[in-house]
């Protein structure tokens, strides 16, 4: 099966310098924090859908922003932080 775009490893933004830490060091230092941040996002989305059962929010534009940001987290492009900022700040 051909790999879809999101299966590929994201490329760094052209011209971005290598990080001061190598890949393994980045995971050592930040894996657990990212894991916790993902659980926070997941729990917030669960809370949101439970909240919508009590009313409100269904077509709120902030939901579209969150969905667009989540797609960027999982795409094959670099500069994720800048691109997510651009979703939340036009």
């Amino acid at each position, binding site marked *: 099966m051909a790999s879809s775009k999101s299966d590929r490893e994201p490329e760094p933004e052209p011209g971005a310098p290598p990080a001061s830490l190598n890949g393994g060091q980045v995971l050592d230092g930040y894996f*657990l*924090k990212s*894991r*916790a941040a993902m*659980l*926070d996002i997941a*729990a*917030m989305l*669960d*809370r949101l859908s*439970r909240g919508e059962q009590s009313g409100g929010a269904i077509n709120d534009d902030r939901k579209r922003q969150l969905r667009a940001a989540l797609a960027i987290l999982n795409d094959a492009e670099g500069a994720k932080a800048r691109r997510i900022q651009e979703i939340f700040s036009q």
Partner: protein
Amino acid sequence: MFLIDPHVHMVSRTTTDYENMAMAGVVAVSEPAFWAGFDRSPAAFSDYYRQLTEFEPTRAASFGIRHFCWICLNPKEAEDLGKAREVLSLIPDFLSRPNVLGVGEIGLHKNTPHEMEVFRRHVQLAIDAGAARGGPHALILIHTPHLADKLKGTRLILDMLREFGAAIDPARVLIDHVEEHTISMVKDAGYWAGMTIYPTTKATPERAIDMIEVYGAEQMCINAAADWGISDPLWIHRTMLEAQRRGQNRAALIRLFHNNPASFFGQHPGFSIRPIEVVEK
């Protein structure tokens, strides 16, 4: 607001923590025996158990806080079966001390066969201690593993408890550090469940209150498992604040943060703090 801290390692906290906790309404703490950050010799355990049963109650009392504890060999030091045998032989004597609520925090760390063996021996100790008094088994407090080992470890713990059949009463066992993927199996089997608010590796105040909303407050306790790591006993209070922000009233807060622990621990005759009632006039 009055609270009972159901899981805190005061031996590694300062006296200022006791003072802050007292000012924040903590009336009692329950301190499970745990890992000191390095592996100890069997002789060190006897001193540690004395610290938990003699020294900490005095330190707590000067702030009006009642101190209770749990005795065991923690799972992180259970790999050496020879040492485990020696340490476990010390436990029965300490179980009868006045501030000892039961056996804990036992459990699994890396889910190894030796850890499982030592877990079963602790459960048997709790059963034997009860039989010696002609009553039900001693209360049991269980640590479930961290992170990647949690799901499998929690299942193994439930399987091992099941092996003891009717000798184990789920209402006398609290299984701690449950999270979104383990809370149902613990509650469905009738055990008490503990949720731990601890940075990065465990739950957050928001996620804990989500779980209370979804699974209910019945047989649930919330703790911060504050220890020698980056942690804070007052994370319990942050969680209370989160519940308050979501509209939980004072009676609900007292139930979750005071009365639930009082009900579970109150099954031990030495734990004399009774649930309190909020009456709005």
